[in-house]
């Protein structure tokens, strides 16, 4: 069937029923509930993982879920074969006390240590101020394993499949009855449930299914393939006996106000089963589904409703999210949450430990590098060749620092604007200002020459100490002093 639009009100439910994995996606628009699509795979050749893939829950190679169904919440049904149901009656007390009573009762009823079992319970009003309590119990290990198996569905809830069946009966099979004893005969087994207001109050599973009617193996048997006649006459007798034993354990009798209804797709097989039960003294009736309250895909009829009664009911529960569901996985989810937290802490501790080890390794690396470098470099520095080279270079630097370039000095004082300037003498002495004496055609030429010297990078503080006009030649005789690089400083003199 084609997949329809998914909205935030859509729920996908999957369960194993009649030796097949079955899934249905249901959407609710106001008061209209619509079945979008259904899928099923044989359970003997496929796994929950394969079915999750078939339903669109893809997984990466690393095993992490990457679901394409971002908007559809999912609900998975747990086969009640591994679940034990008990029904007790206690005085109405506060919820905390009730929990303690339930815990004590469950421990006394169950054959396993309390730490190995998971218990879920709910109350229903009874008479005389007492309350009836329905207890479901299962091995914790079994639940853990199942939760791991269906993890790829990323289920919002894992519910009991019989709860789904009860909800489907209430919504789609019931003719207004509020309570009934439901008999759902599957291929491999038969579920018997006391149902009130769409909730299971007691349940049991018989190991006899319709496959025993004919000669086929259970996994080969589909409801559509069931024989129309009961070939095995002993089957009806044994089935009635088993059913009567279960009903006795439920405290049910013919006079009770729980009508016995056998869920049917309208086929003849269930009619004959009911007839055989009636002959055995059990007042059973057939209960047929109706699709009138549902919007269904074309070709979807009572047979399909019957086939998908379990996932359909689970989807309806998922849509309504009623209070008081028998949730055996509450503790399992808490355990997984604790494990996740512990895992997160372990990751933090591991990261911290790795960081600490890396820090220690870094410190040790730096330390040993320092030690090795110090050893090597000290050995190098201590060699006579190094010391000689160092001293020689230090000497060269000292000499270079005290060696003025006289050619450069002569070039510097001759450079620049010197038109009309004739130099007569130069006196350079380390630790003193240098002196030049000369003649200029006029004052402007002298000043221009001075400016040229001032602009020179090697010459500083140029001053004219003497300037006078020669009466004979009419030229300006001048004397200038200046500092040449750092050689004019006192400390430069040797």
């Amino acid at each position: 069937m084609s997949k329809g639009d998914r909205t935030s009100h859509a729920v996908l439910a999957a369960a194993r029923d009649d030796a097949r994995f079955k899934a249905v996606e249901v959407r609710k628009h106001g008061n209209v509930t619509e079945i979008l699509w259904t899928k099923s795979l044989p359970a003997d050749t496929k796994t929950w993982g394969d079915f999750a893939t078939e339903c669109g829950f893809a997984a990466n190679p690393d095993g992490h879920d990457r679901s394409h169904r971002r908007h559809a919440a999912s609900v998975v049904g747990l086969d009640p074969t591994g679940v034990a149901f008990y029904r007790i009656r206690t005085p109405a007390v506060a919820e905390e006390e009730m929990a303690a009573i339930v815990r004590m009762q469950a421990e006394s009823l169950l054959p396993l240590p309390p730490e190995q079992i998971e218990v879920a319970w709910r109350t229903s009003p009874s008479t005389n101020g007492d309350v009836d309590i329905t207890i479901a119990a299962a091995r914790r290990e079994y639940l853990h394993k199942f939760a791991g198996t269906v993890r790829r569905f990323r289920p919002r809830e894992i519910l009991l499949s019989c709860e789904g069946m009860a909800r489907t009966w209430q919504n789609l099979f019931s003719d207004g009855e509020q309570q009934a004893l439901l008999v759902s005969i599957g291929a491999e087994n038969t579920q018997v449930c006391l149902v009130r207001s769409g909730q299971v109050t007691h349940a049991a599973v018989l190991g006899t299914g319709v496959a025993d009617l004919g000669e086929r193996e259970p996994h080969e048997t589909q409801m559509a393939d069931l024989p129309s006649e009961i070939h095995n006459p002993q089957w009806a007798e044994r089935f009635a006996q088993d059913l009567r034993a279960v009903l006795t354990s439920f405290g049910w009798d013919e006079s009770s106000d729980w009508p016995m209804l056998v869920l049917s797709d309208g086929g003849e097989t269930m009619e004959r089963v009911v007839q055989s039960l009636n002959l055995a003294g059990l007042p059973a009736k057939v209960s047929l589904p109706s699709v009138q309250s549902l919007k269904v895909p074309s070709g979807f009829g009572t047979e399909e409703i019957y086939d998908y009664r379990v996932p359909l009911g689970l989807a309806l529960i998922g849509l309504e999210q009623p209070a008081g569901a028998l949730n055996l996985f509450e503790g399992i989810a808490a355990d997984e949450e604790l494990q996740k937290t512990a895992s997160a802490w372990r990751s933090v501790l591991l990261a911290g430990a790795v960081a600490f080890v890396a820090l220690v390794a870094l410190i040790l690396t730096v330390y040993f590098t320092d030690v090795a470098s110090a050893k090597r470099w000290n050995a190098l520095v201590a060699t006579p060749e190094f010391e000689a080279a160092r001293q020689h270079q230090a000497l060269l630097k000292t000499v270079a620092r005290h060696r003025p370039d006289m050619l450069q000095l002569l070039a510097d004082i001759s450079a620049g604007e010197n038109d009309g300037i004739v130099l007569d003498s130069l006196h350079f002495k380390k630790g003193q200002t240098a002196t030049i004496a000369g003649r200029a055609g006029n004052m402007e030429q002298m000043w221009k020459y001075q400016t040229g010297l001032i602009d020179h990078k090697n010459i500083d503080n140029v001053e004219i100490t003497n300037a006078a006009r020669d009466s004979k030649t009419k030229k300006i005789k001048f004397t200038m002093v200046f500092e040449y690089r750092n050689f004019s400083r006192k400390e430069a003199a040797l």
Partner: protein
Amino acid sequence: MARKLNEREKRMLLFGAASAVLILAFTYGVRWLDHWGKTRKTLTLAKSRLGEIETDEAKRAGLAAIVPVFEVPQPEDKQKFLFRDRLHEQLKKAGIQTEPLQFLATRRTKNVAHKVLKIKCKGKCKFDQLLNFLANLKENPYLVGVEELRIQCDAKEPPEKRKDKPIEIELTVSTFVK
């Protein structure tokens, strides 16, 4: 059969172990840190001494341009003659006529490890000869530098005629002695 420790005993044991680790860490850790500190000081010193050797090619070339040759200073008795002879040779090669070279008193100077010996000379030469001499002066392997240079032209001569006229020079150069 060994008894299992209770929580209190486990805490005590953990505390004891942690204390022991802390004591050991403090005792040996401080020593280790001291040793590391000394190692780093030694390393810094070695790095500093290694840094005294100039490895930059451009700087080495610059240094070689200023001081192309230099001999390690000898004792004064030896160095003074080596320096004087080489200086005289350079003056002679440049064609500079000088008065006898005159040693000045050896003196010690701040910031220099060696004593300084100076030679003073006076002479006359053409300006070209002086330039030639100054250009080749740094080839003297004993020379430290020119301490004083006085150049005096004949002021009466016009500039265009000075080229062929001698100028008076007074030069003081220095060397290091051990």
